[in-house]
Each structure stands twice: as C-alpha cells, then as structure tokens.
C-alpha cells in the first residue's frame, strides 16, 4: 500500500464525503470525518518522510505513462503543503462539532461535514497533482465547497460575501483555465513536468507571455493578493467560525503553493523572473499589501474582520519573500506558509470559542474576557505575539529568514519597511489585548464561562505548536529549505 500513498492522500477524504451522506447522524459523521482527516494527516507525514529520504515520488493514475495519463508528483514542496493542510484540517475539525452546534441549524450538520471534507479533498488534490488541468478540476471542488460553506454563516451578509467570492473565484479559475489553454496550445501537453521541459523552447513567444499573465492573475485572485483581495475580508468574517479557521489557515496557502509551482516549476525561474519583471511588481504589491491591509486591520471593530485583514497583510510577507527569487527568500515564504497556518488556525479557533460563548465578536464583546475565558484569551495573545514576530514563537523564525533574504540581496529599505509593517501588527493585536484585559465588561453583558474542552484542546495544540516550532525549528526549516533548494535545482 505504501506505493499508493499519494493517491490515498486525496482519495480517503474524497470517498469519505459521500459515505457521510449515508451515515445520517451528525455525531457519527463528525467522528467519521475526523478519522478520515486524521488518516490523511498520517499519510502526509509518511509521504513527507518518504520524500525527504528518497526524493520525488511519481504516481501514474490509471497506470498510464506521464504526459498521456494524469500523474501525481510529490516532491518536497507539495509534501510540506499536504502536511500543513491535512494537519490543520484535522485539528480544526476536532472543534467543529461543538462550534457548529450554535452556528448552523441541526438539519444541515451532515452537509457541513461533507462540504468540509470535499473542500479538504480539493485542496489536497490541487497540491498533490502534477497535471495542470487536474489542478483546475480540484480547484473547483475546493472552491464550490468553500462557497457553500461560507454561505452557511449565520448572518445574511454571509450570503452576499459568498456570492462575491463566487464571482471573483470563478473569474480567477476561468483565467487559470485560459492560461492553461494557452500553454497547452504552445506545447501540446498538460503535465507540469513535461511542460517545464517543453516551455523553454517557446518561452520567447507572445502567447506564452499572455498565458503566464493569465495564470498569475488567476492565482492571485485566489490568493487574495493585495489589489485582488476584496472578496476575502467579508468571506472570512461572516463564514461560520470553524470554516474561517480552516480556510484562513489553509486556503490561501494552497494558492501560494500554486503561484510557486507555476512560476518556479512550470514556467521556470529564468522565464518568470528574467523575461517578466515579476520581481519588482510583486515586491511592490507585497509591501503595499502589508501596509494597506495592516492599516485597515487597525480600524476594524469586528475581530474576525481584523484578523482577515491581517491575513492579507501576512500574504504580503509571503509575496515579498517569493519576489526575491532566491533560495533564502523562498525558504522564508515556505516557512511563513507553515507558521502562518499555525498562528491563524489557533487565533480563529480561539475566536470560534469566543463566539460559542459570547455569540458576538465585536471588539466590545471581548471586554473583560481576559478574566472570564483566560485560556482562550491567552491563546489569542500568544497567537498575536506570533503574528508580530516575537522571539520563541514561529512568527519570529519566518521573519528572521525574510530579513536574512532581504539583507542578503541588499534590500535594506525593504527590510526596514517589513519591520515597520510588523509594528502595525503590534497595534491591532494590542487593541484586542487592551479590550480583553484592561477594560471592564459592559454593564449589560452577562458573565461567560471558559470555552469547553473540545475547543481548548485544538486551540492549545496549535498554540503549543506555535511555540514548539518557534524553538525547535529543525523540522520546519529543514523541510522548507530543502523544498526551496530543490525548486532552484540546487542539489543537497
């Protein structure tokens, strides 16, 4: 069975989804999806081990040879991503049962789990596959389930946010489809590895240039990169809290993966960064994104909105690292992918716990919660410190690498800007700390209890991971570095 791990990674959550429909009872379905997601996580660990020791795994679906059939191609980069996605999904799912109890009507719980699993399947499929068109198909699986999940939110704004996301997402996906069509037209193949071999011959054509532009814009729409981010804040803020936790920690990561995969592996480094002025453009957009989004975050009253904007800002950091097109820069981006998943997963889960107890997530509702829900609020604070990049948290590690990458290239002013950007994070994190710890609760609010264990366990699992991987960086750094080096073709 070991040889089939790559496909099992995707197939297990996929097959679990329709089975859920047959199980009927919500509790059973929850347990079942938890097991499916846990299995996927276990497989991803095995895969990562396998890739780190023995290199790229290629799996031919249907037994057809690569450019003719669809290939799953697991290298260090996507094994890392598979680990992040399936790991976060499992941890978040743990809290799902309690959380949706209050946010989603009973008769829709089963559908919720099915869509959740499908969304997970879609993301895993995007990451695992080595076929450009297959990416599109799985992208749509994850997107469609995402639209439905977001629309499940309690308020009517959720519907509107979901609709806007649907429009933007579909435009993005169609752009990717156009781009794939154009490169297919120039090379006659859809397999990513084959594409990377055949594209350099036609790299100088205008068609390939247009294809590149379409793929990048399409991916950036999904990525919520700065000028294309408009769908994200509302979608995150009004979705059910569990969904927010899951997406904030994984969905944009998968899009960043696609960006890296297309620029580095498919189009190739020399094309993406020499022929096209991607570096300057992306660095500028990344920086503007950091500042614009962090500033917006400061002025939000709704805490979920606040952290949604913070997510856009964090994407900016990843983009800056990516735009350097150096091994260290890419390592920084990959590390931040991992680290940001841990922080945002923890923070949004903690917010879910607050919503579960308080019912509302305006800044004012947090008043006095430092005493009433000490463990939950402590988690938000630690997560926030990690966002700022305080040492001994994961945020510091990725910031360190990003700074190294910038200084290595002599981008001093950008390094200063990056650090100033994290000061904005201090401001918005501190608004929450002040509200929670230094303001008396509103008179008309009734006291609340600490969140139940089903929240605290996953929240603190992530928080401990935040600290653990901030101290023991061997695993994350080693994998991220190896992945970055392999993308640059540097042999270890």
């Amino acid at each position, binding site marked *: 069975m070991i040889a*089939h791990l790559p*496909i099992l990674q995707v*197939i297990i959550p*996929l*097959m679990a*989804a*329709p*089975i859920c*429909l*047959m199980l009927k009872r919500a509790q059973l379905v929850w347990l079942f999806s938890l097991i499916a997601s846990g299995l996927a996580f276990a497989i991803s660990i095995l895969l990562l081990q396998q890739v780190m020791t023995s290199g790229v795994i290629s*799996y*031919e*679906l*249907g*037994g*057809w040879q690569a*450019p*003719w*059939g*669809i290939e799953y191609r697991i290298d260090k980069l996507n094994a890392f991503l598979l680990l992040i996605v399936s790991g976060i999904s499992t941890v978040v799912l743990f809290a799902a049962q309690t959380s949706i109890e209050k946010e989603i009507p009973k*008769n*829709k719980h089963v*559908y*919720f789990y*099915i*869509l959740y699993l*499908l969304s997970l*399947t879609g993301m895993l499929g995007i990451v695992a596959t080595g*076929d450009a*068109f*297959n990416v599109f*198909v*799985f992208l*749509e*699986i994850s997107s*469609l*389930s995402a*639209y*439905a999940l977001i*629309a*499940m939110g309690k308020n009517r704004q959720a519907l509107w946010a979901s609709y806007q996301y649907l429009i933007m997402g579909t435009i993005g996906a169609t752009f990717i489809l*156009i781009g794939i069509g*154009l490169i*297919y*037209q*120039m*090379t*006659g*193949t*859809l397999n990513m590895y084959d594409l990377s071999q*055949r594209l350099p011959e*036609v790299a100088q054509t*205008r*068609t*390939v*240039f*247009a*294809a590149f*532009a*379409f793929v990048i814009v399409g991916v950036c729409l999904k990525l919520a990169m700065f000028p294309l981010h408009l769908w994200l804040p509302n979608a995150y803020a009004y979705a059910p809290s569990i969904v927010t936790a899951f997406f904030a920690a994984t969905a944009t990561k998968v899009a960043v993966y696609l960006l890296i995969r297309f620029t580095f592996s498919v189009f190739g480094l020399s094309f993406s960064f020499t022929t096209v002025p991607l570096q300057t453009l992306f660095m500028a957009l990344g920086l503007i994104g950091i500042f614009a989004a962090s500033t917006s975050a400061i002025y939000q009253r709704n805490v979920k909105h606040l952290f949604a904007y913070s997510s856009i800002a964090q994407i900016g950091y990843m983009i800056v690292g990516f735009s350097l097109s150096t091994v260290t820069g890419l390592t920084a981006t990959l590390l931040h992918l991992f680290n940001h998943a841990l922080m945002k997963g923890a923070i949004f889960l903690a917010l879910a716990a607050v919503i579960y107890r308080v019912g509302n997530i305006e800044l004012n509702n947090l008043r006095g919660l430092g005493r009433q829900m000490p463990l939950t609020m402590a988690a938000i604070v630690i997560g926030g410190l990690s966002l700022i990049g305080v040492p001994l948290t994961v945020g510091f590690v990725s910031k360190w690498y990003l700074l190294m990458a910038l200084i290595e290239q002599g981008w001093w002013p950008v390094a200063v800007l990056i650090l100033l950007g994290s000061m904005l994070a201090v401001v918005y994190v501190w608004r929450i700390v002040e509200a929670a710890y230094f303001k008396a609760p509103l008179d008309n609010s009734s006291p609340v209890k600490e969140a139940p264990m089903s929240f605290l366990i996953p929240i603190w699992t992530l928080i401990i991971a935040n600290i653990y991987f901030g101290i023991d960086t061997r695993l994350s750094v080693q994998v991220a570095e190896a992945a970055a080096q392999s993308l640059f073709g540097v042999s270890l």
Partner: protein
Amino acid sequence: MIDIILLTLLVVVAIAIIRMKDLFAVVMLLGIYGLLSASFFVAMDAVDVAFTEAAVGAGISTLLMLVVIAMTGRKEKTNRHKPLPALCIVLITGGLLIYGTFDMPHFGAADAPIHQHVAPRYINDSMAEVGVPNIVTSVLASYRAFDTFGEVVVIFTAGIGVLTLLSVARRKEDAEKISSINDSMHEQHLVIRIVAKMLIPFIFLFALYVQFHGDFGPGGGFQAGVIFAAAIILYAMLFGLNTARKVINQTFIQLIAAVGVLLYGSVGIVSLMNDGNFFNYNVLASDPIAGQHLGILLIEWGVGCTVASVMMIIFFSFAGRLELHQHNERVKNQESS
C-alpha cells in the same frame, strides 16, 4: 464558412445579452447562445461536447434561471454602476489575449504542437490500449479518468451545496396546502400531460441508449444522466412537485448521488486491491481490454447515477423554493386584501 456564420451569430447574441434589460429575454438569449455554441462545436468536430453543451447550456441552466427569475422578478434595474472601469479591465484583458494570439498556431493548422505531442498516441493507440472506438470516451474514461472523477465530485459538491442553501424543512399541513393549489393549476394542461406520459418512457429509453452507446458514438454517463433527469423534471413540471416527490423519494436520490461517486471511486479502489495503480482497469479482468471495457462501463454508470440524481436534487430544491415563495406571496396578498 459555417463557423464564421456561427461566430458572428454568437457575437450578435452576446451584444444582445449585454443590452437587454428584461431578464427573461436575457435567459432565453443565453439558451440560444448555448445552442449556437453547441452547433459550433459540431462544426469543430466536437460532437460529444456539443451534445453536452446543448443539454446543459441550453437546457438545464436555462431552466434553472427561469425558475430563479420567477422568484426574483424579471426586470434589471437600469443603471450600470461602473461601466468605465469595467471597460478598462475588459480592454486590457482582451488586449493581452489578442497580443497572445500573434504567436499562436493558426486555426486548423495540422502542425500545431497540440497535434504533435500527446494527442497522436490517443488517436493511434487507443484502440489497441483501451479498445473503444470513441477516442473521447477512451481519453475521458481511461487515460484521464481521474479528471472525470473530479468532475463527478464537482457535481456532487454542487448538489450538496444547493441542498444546504435551499432545502427547506416545512410543516406537513403547509405542504398539503401548497400541493393542493398546485395540483389544481396543473390540471389545465391535460393534453400535454397525456402526451408527456407517453413520451417519458421513450426518454428513459433514450437515456439508457446514450449511457451505453458512449463507447461507439457521442454520449456517455453525463449526457445520459442529464437526459434521465430531464424526463423526471418534465414529469414534475406537468404533474406537480408533490406527485413527483411521491414517485421519487428525496432521500433516495441523495443516496444515489453518493452511490454514484462511490461506485466510480471503488473501481479505482478495486484496481488498487489488484495491485494496479488507481483506475488501472487492466487489472480488473484477466484480459486488459476486457478490463478496460468493464472499468469504463462501471464508471460511466457512476457518472450517470450521480449526474442524474444531482440534476434532480438541484431542480427539486429550486422548484421547492419557488413553491414556498409563491405560497408566501399568496398568503401575503390574502392578508393585505
């Protein structure tokens, strides 16, 4: 030549869609757009695609939109809020694409890269490797079976999504009241009802034909599923949703949708069990070609089941909502009068 004419017509229809304010007309035009592009696909030798586009673009999606318009009203408000930025974006995007076309292989050129790499093997060897005359079917169901699996999952996802959004838990007495009103309405179309009753078995038969004939000509699980669902939808429209619901249990169709996906997936799992890769049909039987045939047959069934049941789920959800909507309107009117 025919393609130029069709394209010109398409452009005309597209412009009409932009300019029309009446949503009913827009939806009808969209149906025409679907039909025209289906015809264009025939001219481009893509018969399978044409079949599907006609069933989906002109059929199902038009139907769904009409149901929605019945609920939301058919007038578009006149102001277009941001025509200028939109025009800019469109011009830039279009300009980029046109810029891209200059290095493209020419239309219909046989020496284009796509005809030189990958595709020749499908054309030359698929008969020996898969044993199905319709190359589209062999690529769809065997070479790229996983894409098609993904497609089935997409449809399944859409079905579940629509269910979460639109399913209504209604009280029993409400349901009876609604259905009694509807039944009285449907009694008017007596002639059509009788004709339809005679037609429906033949539609089913045709669906089965398309299902199994996919190996040799255009068709396959997807088209068959849509046709099958169309028959049921026709029945529901003429005899009332409630009657249709009595014939086809809602839980049951959901189950079939799930079974379809599982059937498709288990073909892959079985090939795993037999030491083949996922979806390697060769290992399903002692003879590789026989294995391929068996595999394709099974997964086409899976596709057919899921597509047919999801189409029904979607239609019933929309129509159920429409019913509720009309009922509420009527109650409101009664109260106000």
